[in-house]
């Protein structure tokens, strides 16, 4: 096994260990909130998921820019991996939020600015992943999805600032100033848990993308075939 793959697996294992510790702290040790009671314990997975979803999509945005500037395949591999992880985390974010909304707001969903912009984020990046699946040419696929990712990324800061800019039903951003100090540790531990988990998974997923593209672009050569016909884009690393 390559050292980078072993490192990715170690990151995943460390992330899972942190998540187990943080969730235990949040469920068993941290006090309930004054008004929301035990329901507030959903915050220990919901808020870290939100932070990491936006971080993963920001990573994908940086990879898209790097690909367009360098034409190195490793950035396209990372873009695909980061975007997929961001969509999974955003989808999870909506599901957790919906479960939290029912006992606190009385509804599973509301077309409030934060929720609406988050739904747009899921569909925009999910759509780009679908676009990638339909384009056979690896060069076109990489360029188109990089450009689309940069355009879709406009929504990410809107999601973050939506609760500040508009009169939203959603509560304000969770920061050390808005969250009681008794809740800080499980939040931080779970945030780092999800961070390590997605860094590890993105590492492995990028390797999958690299191997898959290598198979698409370079069919097995025999001694009689010359090694020509590769696209003029550099780099085979993850």
């Amino acid at each position, binding site marked *: 096994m390559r050292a980078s*793959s072993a490192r990715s697996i170690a990151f*995943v294992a460390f992330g899972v260990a942190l998540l187990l510790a943080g*969730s235990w702290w949040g*469920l068993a040790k941290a006090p309930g909130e*004054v*008004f*929301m*009671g*035990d*329901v507030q*314990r*959903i915050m220990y*997975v*919901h808020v870290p*998921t939100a932070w990491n979803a936006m971080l993963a999509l920001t990573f994908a945005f940086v990879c898209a820019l790097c690909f367009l500037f360098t034409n190195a395949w490793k950035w396209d591999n990372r873009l695909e991996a980061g975007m997929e*992880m961001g969509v*999974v985390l955003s*989808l*999870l974010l909506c*599901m*957790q939020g919906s*479960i*939290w909304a*029912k*006992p*606190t707001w009385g509804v599973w969903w509301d077309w409030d600015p934060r929720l609406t912009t988050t739904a747009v984020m899921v569909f925009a990046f999910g759509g780009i992943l679908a676009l990638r699946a339909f384009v056979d040419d690896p060069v076109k696929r990489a360029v188109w999805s990089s450009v689309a990712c940069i355009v879709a990324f406009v929504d990410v800061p809107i999601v973050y600032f939506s609760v500040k800019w508009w009169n939203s039903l959603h509560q304000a951003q969770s920061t050390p100033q808005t969250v009681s100090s008794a809740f800080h540790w499980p939040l931080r531990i779970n945030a780092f848990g*999800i961070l390590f*988990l997605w860094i590890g*998974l993105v590492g*492995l*997923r990028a*390797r*999958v993308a690299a*191997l*898959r593209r*290598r*198979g698409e672009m370079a069919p*097995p050569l025999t001694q009689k075939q010359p090694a020509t016909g590769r696209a003029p884009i550099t780099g085979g690393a993850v």
Partner: protein
Amino acid sequence: MSGVIEGGWEFVIAAYTVSALLLGGYATSVFLRFKKEKARATNEVSG
């Protein structure tokens, strides 16, 4: 009405279960795809 939510553990359990299932399911799919692509690449090199 006091404005305080009583109980609600079923929602907490649901949120944590959904998180574990989705993240666990995605992690499993990534590991399986990684294993499959690695095996395919090895076969191409050897065969």
